[in-house]
């Protein structure tokens, strides 16, 4: 008997038992597809968190006046509070005391309105800072140039503005080299920052950045800083940098013993680490759900295969009684099982790929290639083993034993 003939028998077997064929293929399809999609959702959500981690920069810390920041240093009484000053920022740049701090950017902020002719706008962010701010806050420019340390020391009246501010004041013409009047002071626009988009309710492009010296000298006077952005040397040294800056500021602000701190440190990295840890947990959970669904699918396949062979033991007996060799029967059932599992597995992969194109629970799924091979492989192994093993047992029976089977 030729292989071709046995394959024909197997295909005929599948067609004569249409419902069973359909149910088995369906079971495998669902199992494989759910594994692929669930893992893709988990993977997608951790990818999304990773992306926001990368965007925010994992190595920056923010120091603000007042207690009660992230990491819970208790509130100090208002009277004993010392404000954050530009000198505090300068002190943090001490390489011997704070080897893990790469750079420091003080931020003075104000609420001012900018005017050009008849156009006015109130930028939601109006900061005075120095060049270290660019990298620490992931700010870059799309045209023009940055203001430099020299601009800061000289207290020049130059400004970088965001796209929203530029459009409000200058419309479609290039703002570079133009002048604008903010809080009564005239500034030359020297750079346009790259579009950041909105984060939360804040428009990241409604922005004016000027040298901190210019702001203190001309607008705010010696007002305290609103915050200091500290950048650690890399993402692993953020915690060390936090300890160092706390030690330095404690000393400068006379914080010791009972006296509680009058500043607080916000560690974005640790916040995001928590988020990414919980996303890993989420992925693991989804993976477990997927594994269970594959297992349940597998048990379903096993069940159908076992029932099929038991149901068809009599048929196996008949075939043996009319001269079928064991090999031919076994091959037929193995080929049936293989066709079923490959078909179901392939459909499952297809459904998995299609399903992963939709946004599920607010997440854009990203397929894990290994999950495709795993799910496909496991379903085929289960199908072939549980289709093949009972068939081989039935085919080894004496014909009369198989025929007596009810």
């Amino acid at each position, binding site marked *: 008997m030729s292989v071709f003939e046995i394959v024909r028998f197997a295909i005929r077997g599948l067609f004569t038992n249409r419902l069973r064929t359909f149910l088995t293929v369906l079971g495998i399809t669902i199992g494989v597809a759910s594994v692929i999609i669930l893992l893709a959702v988990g993977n997608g959500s951790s990818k999304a968190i990773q992306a926001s981690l990368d965007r925010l920069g994992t190595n920056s810390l923010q120091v603000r006046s007042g207690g009660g920041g992230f990491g819970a240093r208790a509130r100090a009484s208002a009277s004993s509070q010392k404000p954050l000053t530009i000198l505090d920022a300068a002190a943090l740049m001490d390489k011997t005391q704070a080897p893990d701090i790469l750079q420091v950017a003080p931020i003075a902020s104000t609420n001012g309105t900018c005017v050009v002719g008849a156009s006015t706008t109130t930028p939601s962010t109006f900061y005075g800072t120095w060049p270290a701010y660019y990298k620490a806050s992931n700010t870059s420019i799309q045209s023009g140039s940055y203001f430099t340390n020299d601009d800061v020391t000289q207290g020049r009246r130059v400004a970088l503005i965001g796209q929203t501010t530029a459009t409000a004041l200058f419309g479609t013409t290039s703002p570079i080299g133009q002048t604008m009047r903010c809080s009564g002071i005239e500034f030359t626009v020297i750079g346009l920052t790259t579009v950041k988009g909105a984060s939360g309710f804040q428009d990241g492009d409604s922005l004016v950045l000027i040298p901190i010296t210019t702001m203190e000298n001309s607008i705010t006077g010696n007002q305290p800083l609103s915050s200091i952005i500290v950048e650690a040397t890399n993402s692993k040294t953020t915690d060390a940098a936090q300890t160092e800056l706390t030690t330095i500021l404690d000393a400068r602000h006379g914080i010791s013993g009972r006296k509680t701190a009058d500043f607080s440190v916000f560690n974005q990295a640790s916040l995001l680490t928590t988020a990414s840890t919980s996303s890993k947990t989420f992925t693991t959970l989804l993976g477990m759900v997927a594994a269970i669904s594959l297992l349940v699918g597998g048990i379903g396949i096993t069940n159908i295969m076992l029932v099929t062979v038991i149901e068809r033991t009599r048929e196996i007996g008949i075939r043996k009684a009319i001269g079928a060799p064991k090999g031919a029967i076994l091959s037929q059932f193995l080929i049936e099982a293989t066709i079923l599992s490959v078909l179901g597995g392939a459909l499952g992969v297809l459904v998995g790929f299609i399903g992963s194109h939709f946004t599920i629970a607010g997440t854009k799924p990203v397929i894990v290639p290994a999950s495709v091979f795993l799910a496909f492989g496991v379903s085929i192994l289960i199908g072939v083993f549980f289709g093949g093993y009972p068939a081989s047992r039935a085919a080894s029976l004496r014909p009369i034993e198989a*025929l007596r089977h009810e």
Partner: protein
Amino acid sequence: MEAVRAVDSVVDKLPVIEVRDAIKRYGVGDASIFALNGVSLTIEAGEYVAIMGPSGSGKSTLMNILGALDNMTSGEYFLDGIEISSMDEIHLSIVRGRKIGFIFQSFNLIPRTTAIANVELPMAYQGVKTKERRERALVALDVVGLGDRINHEPTELSGGQQQRVAVARALVTRPALLLADEPTGALDSKSTADLLDLFDQINAAGRTVVVITHELDVAHRAKRIIRMRDGKIVSDELNKERVA
């Protein structure tokens, strides 16, 4: 008659059944049952034998051994001069396919499979080419009078028709030996008569036929009647009505 000869264009060499001291024992120890308790039997080529006996006397057990569907506990069995009792599974499947045609009381057709596919099946396992297989299956179905029902599945056929498909399937490989275990057990009298006519034709064409039956009128169509009781042959005589 002519048609049977057509199926059987090649006349096989003399088939002989020779069984010596067949013992079939079920279970172990005190609880064991001797379904066959020392049966010796010789059947010459071209004989038409009926086996009778009360229920549980071991008729089916003997038949299954003759058909190579079951093995015996001890004893020897030669079919056509070949020792079956010590044969391995691969050779047994060849013997079942080429030497023996087996007809069951419950027909045992493959479900959800057409009459013609059922009849073609044994030839498929023997490696007969598709075209020849189909031709021979058509002839065999014609012989049993089902030429117009070839594409019907078992559930679409009456009991008598199903049994005739089973006969066609048993004959189509041109076996030396046709074994039938209560073939008329599930049939009405008309179907029984048709089937017995068919057996007469088959035997007249030179084939050895062995039939188990409870019914006297079925047994009386055979040329030799063997009676069994408690796993033993108790009588073995020629049927005077059929053999002069």
